């Protein structure tokens, strides 16, 4: 059971309060119609899926109902930080 700190509520709560929203820092293309099929497919479906440090979005579904980012190790499941959308992570690692 993960204990996730919500930076909006400023409290660590159990993972069942949240829902996972996938890899963070994927920017929606500003002009989708100008992209090739490869670029659009890459944006929609292809992910880095690292074993190790991962930046991901979570949604506090039964709390404040707001999004935020988490840096988590996908091998040990250790949560290294929570930070607001728009901020950059303090912890970055070589992704493998």
């Amino acid at each position, binding site marked *: *059971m*993960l204990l996730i700190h919500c930076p909006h509520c400023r409290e660590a709560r159990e*993972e*069942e309060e949240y*829902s*996972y929203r*996938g890899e963070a820092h994927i920017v929606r293309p500003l002009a989708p119609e100008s992209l090739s*099929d*490869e670029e*659009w*497919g*890459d944006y*929609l*479906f*292809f*992910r*880095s*899926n*690292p*074993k190790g440090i*991962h930046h*991901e979005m979570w949604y506090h579904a039964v709390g404040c109902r707001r999004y935020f980012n988490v840096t988590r190790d*996908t*091998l*040990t*499941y250790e949560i290294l930080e929570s930070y607001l959308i728009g901020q950059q992570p303090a912890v970055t690692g070589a*992704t*493998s």
Partner: protein
Amino acid sequence: MKKYSAFSLLKNALSYHENWQKVWRNPTPKSDYDVIVVGGGGHGLATAYYLAKVHGLTNIAVIEKGYLGGGNTARNTTIIRSNYLWDEAAQLYELSLKLWEGLSQELNYNVMFSQRGVLNLGHTLQDMRDIERRVNANRLNGIDGEVVSPQRVKEIAPLINISADSRYPILGASFQPRGGTARHDAVAWGYARGADALGVDLIQQTEVTGIRRQDGAVVGVETTKGFIGARKVACVTAGNSSVVAAMAGLRLPVESRPLQALVSEPVKPCLDTVVMSNAVHGYISQSDKGDLVIGAGVDSYNGYGQRGSFHIVEHTVQAICELFPAFSRVRMNRQWGGIVDTCPDACPIISKTSVDGLYFNCGWGTGGFKATPGSGYVFADTVANDRPHPLAAAFTLDRFNSGALIDEHGAAGVAH
């Protein structure tokens, strides 16, 4: 390879079973191979077997970081069926089911394939509509299946609770009589023994750490035992596919997540079929040893930790107790997780890549075990001929650019 038979059993009994031939060799890697299969699980070993058997290649190695069949092959719930909705997926899984039906004879190895039937329960009106649609689609594809009433469900699995007073009453089910289970370890061991006898080198305790390329083509793999050259590299590393792809500078449309299962203490025979429920979310069968084998849902977030969230197991056990009130008194023995590559459309990737001579077979998500023979068969053909096997043509990486996804989230068995 010496053939297993009643005669060989008798002969070896006379020498107290001390002179059985080793099941496979333990070779030191050569410096160069025609094809290297990365990953010695069921799918990888099946790929190597069919490359040797059907395509006549013998200079093949399977490189496995741990031991053969020690990953997801050893961690699944052994359910086999082919009742998928869409033509592409149904035909791929049906090829697999047909191969299962002759597999023990083909390999001269008892994979304990048991066609005990698979029930997929419906608990809502919409479930039943989906079941009708899927069974009709299956029958058009020549796959057995029928829609059955709650009373028939009760006849097939007498311990099940079909009371209308349940929280989610059973309104019916689809039943595929040709579905069932097999012994998961035996499948890997049978293919390993068969491949070894055809000259394939099975190299265990050796991890691939890099994929060496030259002018956009594969030239070999870096391993913990040094560089090994290869003209073709076929990656079948479920769970770690993205990690291996990254070695060649590629990204895949998969996310790795833990999928859990648990088994009970052994009990007397009480369930001679497979029962799955999408809506209350659990699936159960009884092994020949007597354990109740229970499968759970997949975690919602990425993880490589081979363990899952506790609340997922809790939810699964609630579902099983709802379906089978008698099982509420059964004690659970072990629980574990395996890392599955989940694809956006719940269908696998069997594909060439942008690197010449590099192939991937991954993304089987929560249901790869049932596909082991078919997956190996079409992937071997794809690798040998450097073009997709007709049944694998719809499962290339290109579908994520063209948008021709094959949405099997419904028939994949459990919601995820």
